[in-house]
């Protein structure tokens, strides 16, 4: 990293962009877990669907993978969301009436299947090599303006999602969702169609995860098997939400920012490790994040910004 003002600014832009992309994913998980109590252990799967869909639709033609459709990036994103939702729907349909554990198992399974399909069916997305020609909106503006404009786009999306999620939280929809989360038998006994509500939260959350995947593919201009490993998405997003405060949309965003800051900080640390340790750096970072999680939860059992019942509607 070059320690010039310009270099620092570019680093800051990168940091903020990643925080915002993880913010999207955390808001999505909060919708599923914080609102509805749904344990999605396969965030990476819906992320991957969104990312690959965006890449395939927008990347230039190549003999190595499906593509050349030349979609404008901003049109590819809604398709990415829809595809993630279409995959989530049957999973939810089958699992959401059952005990919570089944959803966890099914989502892990689905995520792994999606990852392996893209890894092995190389005609689809160039296998392990992945697609590394994903266009990023505004890149024609060059550095730093292109990066800045892309950050502004991601931030605008985060803000829109945040306000939508807040409205959902205070609305009777959010209230019914929390009732189901707290006691599904009693919620059914007051007329709430438990499966319908859960399905809505699950599919909507999965769609937003797909959006996060699409934004990530654009930002890195790349999507491949390494980017869809559970560690980078499922695990990290869970840690972010738990640390920030599940059941709190601000907490979700704060968690994304804090944990990403620390996660990228650990990279500075692991980069200084002796060469024979570098290969082990990913384990070491995970370990550090695990320790952080424990430390934070000692002090903030319900996350830094715990759930609060919404203000009255008026």
């Amino acid at each position, binding site marked *: 990293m070059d320690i010039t003002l310009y270099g620092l600014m570019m680093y800051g832009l990168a940091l903020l962009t990643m925080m915002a992309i993880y913010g999207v994913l955390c808001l999505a998980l909060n919708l599923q877990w914080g609102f509805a109590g749904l344990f999605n252990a396969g965030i990476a799967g819906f992320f991957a669907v969104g990312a690959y869909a965006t890449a395939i639709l927008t990347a230039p033609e190549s003999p190595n993978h499906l593509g050349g459709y030349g979609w404008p990036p901003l049109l590819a994103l809604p398709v990415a969301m829809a595809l993630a939702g279409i995959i989530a729907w049957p999973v939810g349909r089958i699992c959401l009436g059952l005990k919570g554990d089944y959803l966890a198992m099914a989502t892990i399974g689905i995520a792994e299947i999606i990852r392996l399909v893209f890894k092995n069916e190389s005609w689809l997305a160039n296998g392990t090599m992945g697609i590394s020609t994903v266009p990023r909106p505004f890149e024609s503006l060059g550095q730093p303006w292109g990066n800045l404009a892309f950050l502004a786009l991601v931030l605008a999306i985060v803000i829109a999602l945040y306000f*939508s999620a807040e*409205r*959902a939280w205070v*609305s*009777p*929809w*959010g*209230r*019914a969702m*929390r*009732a189901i*989360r*707290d*006691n599904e*038998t*009693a*919620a*059914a*006994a*007051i*007329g*709430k*169609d*438990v499966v319908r509500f859960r399905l*809505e939260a699950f599919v*909507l959350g999965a769609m937003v995860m797909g959006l996060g995947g699409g934004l990530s593919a654009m930002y890195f201009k790349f999507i491949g098997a390494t980017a869809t490993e559970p560690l980078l998405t499922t695990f990290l997003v869970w840690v972010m939400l738990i640390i920030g405060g599940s*059941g709190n949309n601000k907490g979700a965003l704060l968690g994304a920012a804090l944990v990403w800051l620390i996660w990228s900080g650990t990279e500075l640390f692991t980069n200084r490790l002796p060469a024979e340790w570098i290969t082990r750096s990913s384990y070491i970072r995970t370990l550090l994040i695990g320790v952080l999680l424990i430390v934070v939860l000692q002090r903030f059992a319900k996350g830094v910004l715990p*759930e609060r*019942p919404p203000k*009255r*509607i*008026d």
Partner: protein
Amino acid sequence: MIRVDNITKRFGGIRAVDDCSLHVTKGSITGLIGPNGAGKSTLFNIIAGTFPPDGGSVQLDGVDVTGWPAHRLFRAGLARTFQIAHEFARMTVLENLLAVPAGQAGENLLTAWTGWARVRREEAAIRQRAEAVLGELRLEHVAHELAGNLSGGQKKLVELARTMMWQPKVVLLDEIGAGVNRTLLSEIAGEIERLNRDHGYTFFVIEHDMDLIARLCHPVIVMAEGRVLTQGSMAEIRRNEAVIEAYLGGGRTNQNGAGIGAA
């Protein structure tokens, strides 16, 4: 109002409800008593759609509702409380009530996003009703407390309050008196009588408190070992040899055994 025909429910080897048939007349306050483990709560759970029976049928107001899910039965006019309080723990007491009315416009996410004025109007009416109910049950001072933090008796009151947020045809009350203080319980009994008289709600009441049953219920149905033993007025029940036998001897558990004779 409710007609139960030959309902059976097995849990593993136990027949919790065993070929049980009974009838709750429209406009009545019908009592359901019986020793611990007689199958009373299980029968309620079947009537309310919390789980399906292994056999038999249930009719609500002349409609066969066997196997209907609980949320559909609620919408059809059946409200119920749970013996063990099923509060929404991480919601305030007020929210526990506000959540009740079915089919709120704001329960549709698109309406919540685009039609907020309508949601607010509807909410104002629901809130007004909730505040009245909280007042009647002396819960105003805990309205903004998380329901999970309430005492056992207060949680039972929240259970009752939720049924009062809806205009049901029939209300199933499972030991609503357990853990609630005498004075308040007497007021609740008055409230049940009023709702029955003025609004025509039918009540089906499980209770171990024989005074309360004697005051409120006619007729009283006695269950033992999953079946209906007898039914009649409380005075008739008290004289019935088989009932005394069921409570005092032979029953699977009889901690409440002394209740029937002594009361």
